[in-house]
């Protein structure tokens, strides 16, 4: 059995820091309870520790740095869900996990349990640099320049409790990829980094000002190539410029994307580059010992050489076709475990399932698990010879739904079932769509299709980059759902266009069904995806399906 930890292990420094922060938060809670902190003052402090107050309860958002977990951590999450919550956790589009029912008085104990396995909830909220995300296939993808988690880990350490950048105009999200195929949605982050090679040297393409929310924008390249050693100096320059110049008069205009938009990329680049020259002069290089330590933490595991003897059953074959991706070693695969069984809540995993995933990871995936921004769980290093055993174990736990990338693999934010900011529910819409397309053969016939649902304009469900996006709003006192079409979160980044007027809660699923029937009618053949058909024909046939001829003429 493989039990060697290959991911970056938290050091004594991390450990002591976390304990310190928990003690601090414990005292902050005590001060809130004795009245020396008002709710107004306490709120940013609890948010800094990942604790939100939602509709029905508090919600604790726990960081999963770059989406990487080991079996021990997954088991501890299962334990926390059972002891302090209702036996499940919710994986989010930012590779975090949320617990929906903690009590304020239990939170320090939950944080202690997390610290026991090197985890925390720091900077998962508030106007600071948030949990850094990375390609969920990092370290396993065949097409990467190097493991992007090395960069993500450097940024995690640099940004943790950063004295200058913890009270920014607004939240700040950084994503890292190392492949040309962008699985980390880097063009929709405040900063997106893509590791690339230029003249034999590895560095970064730096993208800024992307984002979803009220004003979706595709990020712009501010630097074509940044040498690796200049990373932190460049980040400090961007953040300094943003902290001083970002708008603070209007919450909805405070993200860096608005600064880029209003200042213009050229002007802003000049300011960033000028500050970068200073930072480069003042900022020492990374400590080489520290850097070597981080790099060592992401060395590839000792892959086994063994023959693949068993042939796959038809069910396994179907699962492998849909839920596995090529690994950098031909005899291995990356397995994506869907959390989207028909009728389930996207991203929700029970304690029992978490334990099964932990066991499988320990036995068959070099003790590694990943959480994807698509709210699925990834087993990054599975030997082809172990695929039948992995499939069987997943199936027994209700985790072998073969729908990754298909119509029922829906992203949905918690929406108004939980979230205090939501304007409509998302989860029931996702559940109903999945039920409407429950037949897996029909799903395979429809082919790759990304449906993404947000319960408010903040777009946690990434609806702008869904091939079909659904945005839940309130209209005249009831829930109303707007459809956007043609969004794409990959390197071919595209913001979806609004199809037309919204649909009531009981109209939205039939509307999606009409859209998909229209696609099936119009596609050239099975190999043309929904997105390709949409790009070829434009919105007209889709709008006709949604609204009928009458609307077509009116619009």
């Amino acid at each position, binding site marked *: 059995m493989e039990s060697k930890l290959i991911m970056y292990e938290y050091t004594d420094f991390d450990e002591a*820091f976390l304990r310190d922060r928990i003690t601090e938060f414990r005292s902050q809670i005590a001060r809130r309870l004795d009245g020396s902190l008002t709710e107004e003052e306490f709120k940013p402090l609890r948010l800094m520790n990942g604790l939100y107050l939602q509709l029905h309860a508090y919600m604790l958002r726990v960081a999963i740095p770059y989406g990487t977990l080991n079996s021990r951590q997954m088991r501890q999450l299962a334990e926390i869900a059972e002891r302090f919550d209702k036996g499940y956790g919710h994986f989010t589009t930012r590779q975090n996990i949320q617990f929906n029912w903690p009590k304020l008085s239990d939170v320090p104990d939950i944080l202690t349990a997390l610290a026991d396995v090197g985890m925390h909830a720091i900077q998962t909220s508030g106007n600071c640099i948030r949990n850094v995300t990375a390609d969920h296939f990092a370290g396993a993808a065949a097409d990467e320049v190097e493991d992007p988690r090395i960069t993500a880990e450097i940024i995690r*350490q640099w940004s943790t409790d*950063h*004295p200058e950048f913890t009270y920014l105009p607004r939240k700040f999200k950084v994503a890292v990829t190392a492949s040309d195929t962008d699985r980390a949605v880097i063009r929709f982050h405040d900063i997106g980094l893509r590791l690339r090679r230029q003249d034999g040297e590895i560095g970064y393409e730096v993208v800024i000002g992307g984002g979803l929310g009220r004003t979706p924008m595709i990020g712009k390249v501010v630097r074509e190539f940044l040498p690796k050693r200049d990373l932190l100096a460049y980040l400090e320059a961007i953040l300094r410029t943003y902290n001083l110049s970002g708008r603070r008069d209007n919450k909805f205009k405070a993200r860096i994307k608005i600064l880029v938009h209003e200042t213009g990329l050229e002007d802003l680049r000049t300011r960033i580059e000028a500050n970068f020259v200073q930072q480069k002069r003042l900022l020492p290089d*990374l400590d080489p010992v520290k850097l070597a330590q981080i790099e060592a933490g992401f060395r590839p595991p000792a892959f086994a050489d063994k023959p693949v003897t068993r042939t796959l059953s038809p069910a396994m074959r179907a699962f492998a076709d849909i839920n596995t991706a090529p690994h950098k070693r031909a005899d291995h695969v990356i397995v994506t475990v869907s959390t989207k069984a028909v009728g389930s809540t996207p991203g929700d995993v029970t304690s029992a399932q978490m334990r099964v995933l932990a066991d499988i990871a320990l036995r068959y995936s070099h003790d590694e698990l990943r959480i994807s921004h698509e709210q699925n769980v990834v087993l990054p290093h599975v030997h082809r010879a172990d695929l039948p055993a992995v499939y069987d174990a997943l199936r027994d736990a209700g985790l072998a739904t073969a729908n990754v990338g298909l119509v029922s693999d829906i992203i949905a934010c918690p929406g108004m079932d939980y979230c205090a900011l939501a304007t409509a529910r998302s989860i029931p819409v996702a559940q109903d769509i999945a039920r409407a397309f429950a037949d897996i053969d029909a799903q395979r016939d429809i082919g790759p299709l990304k449906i993404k649902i947000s319960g408010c304009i903040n777009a946690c469900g990434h609806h702008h980059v869904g091939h079909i996006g659904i945005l839940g709003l309130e209209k005249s006192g009831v829930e109303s759902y707007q459809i956007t079409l043609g969004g794409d979160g990959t390197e071919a980044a595209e913001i979806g266009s609004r199809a037309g007027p919204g649909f009531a809660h009981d109209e939205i699923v039939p509307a999606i069904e009409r859209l998909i029937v229209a696609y099936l009618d119009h596609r050239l053949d099975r190999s043309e995806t929904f997105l390709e058909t949409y790009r070829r024909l434009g919105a007209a046939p889709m709008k006709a399906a949604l609204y009928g001829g009458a609307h077509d003429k009116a619009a």
Partner: protein
Amino acid sequence: MSTVVDKTGFVPDLWQDSPLHTYEELGDASALLLTADMDPELIGPHLEQLSLIVIPFGSSTDGRGFSLARTLREMGFSGHLRARGHILVDQARAAYRCGFDDIEIEDPQAARNPEAQWRSVSQRFDYRNDLLAG
């Protein structure tokens, strides 16, 4: 009335007899009130004459003062740097690390956040510095 606090706790205000001047009316005075919306580069030519710079914090969520403080230190300002206004106990660590020498708070806040709270602010961990060489 106000209270001055630094890493050691509540301290006497040694600068109470230094009247502050805005940038516009600075002249050859040595104490400057630098508002958060000012471009710190403007201060460059005057750094030599200044022995005190006070940066007001309008609200605890406005972090511009932290960047201003670091910028001034990077520009070579070695005089006394003070944060004034609504700064939470939990922001004190950030304030000191960005180059502030002390923090001036209103007395009602000092009453709600007694000296012990300020003294217990942990200074132990500094991720950013730990990551850098030297």
